[in-house]
C-alpha cells in the first residue's frame, strides 16, 4: 500500500522553505503520496515570485556568518537582502537546488499543495499571486489526509 506523508508548512523564510519541498520531492520520488498544507507565513512559498522569501541574520544567532557581526549592524537596512544573496550564492556553489526548482519537482511528482483559505483571507492575499495547481481548504481538508498518513510533520 502506498505510504502517505502530510506536511504543514508554516514558515516563510528561506531556510524554513527548504524542508517541506525537500521532503515532499524526495517522498514523491520514493513513491509516496504527499500533501503539503501551507498556512500563515508558509503561504509565501506558493507565490509565483519567490524573490521575497529571504533569510535574516537578525535573531538568528546560529546562522554561520563569514565575519562576526554585532546585532546593531545586522539590523541595518539592506542586511537582510545581503544575507539572502550570500546564502543563495553559497547554495548554488554547493549544488543545492533553488526553491523554484524543488517546488517544480514537487509539482511534477504530483505532490498536492493545499493553501489555507483562512490565512489567505486574513492577510488579504490575492490568489492571482499564487501558482496554479493549488487547492484551497481548511483544517478539515488537512485532517482527512493527515489521518491516513504514515508521516505527519509540522514545519
Amino acid at each position, binding site marked *: 500500500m502506498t505510504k502517505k506523508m502530510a506536511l504543514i508548512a508554516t514558515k516563510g523564510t528561506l531556510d524554513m522553505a527548504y524542508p517541506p519541498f*525537500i521532503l515532499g*520531492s*524526495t517522498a*514523491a*520520488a*520514493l*513513491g509516496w503520496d504527499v500533501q503539503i498544507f501551507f498556512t500563515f507565513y508558509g503561504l509565501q512559498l506558493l507565490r509565483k515570485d519567490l524573490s521575497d522569501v529571504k533569510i535574516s541574520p537578525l535573531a538568528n544567532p546560529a546562522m554561520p556568518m563569514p565575519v562576526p557581526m554585532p546585532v546593531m549592524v545586522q539590523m541595518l537596512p539592506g542586511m537582510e537582502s545581503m544575507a539572502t544573496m550570500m546564502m543563495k550564492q553559497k547554495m548554488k556553489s*554547493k*549544488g*543545492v*537546488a533553488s526553491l523554484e526548482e*524543488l517546488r517544480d*519537482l514537487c509539482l511534477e*511528482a504530483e505532490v498536492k499543495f493545499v493553501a489555507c483559505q483562512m490565512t489567505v483571507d486574513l492577510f488579504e492575499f490575492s490568489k492571482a499571486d499564487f501558482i496554479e495547481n493549488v487547492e484551497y481548504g481548511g483544517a478539515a481538508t488537512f485532517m482527512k489526509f493527515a489521518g491516513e498518513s504514515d508521516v505527519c510533520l509540522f514545519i
Partner: protein
Amino acid sequence: MNFDKEYDASGLSCPLPIVKTKKALADMTTGQVLKVVATDPGSVCDMAAFAEQTGNALLEQGEEAGKFVFFLKKA
C-alpha cells in the same frame, strides 16, 4: 558492469541525486540498468534507502575516480 543508461548527478546536493535518479528511471523498462554517478557523500546512504523503498535493486556500488557510482536495476 554493463548498463543501459547513465545519469551524472555530480555536483548536486540532497535531494537532487535521488529525485533526478527517479526521473532518469522513468523512461526505462523493467530489468534495464541505470548507472548513477554522484559526488554527494550523503548519496551513499540515500541511494540504498531509495533502492529499498522503491524496489529498484542496487546491484553494485563503489567509487570511481573519486566519485560515487551506483548501478540500479529498474523494477
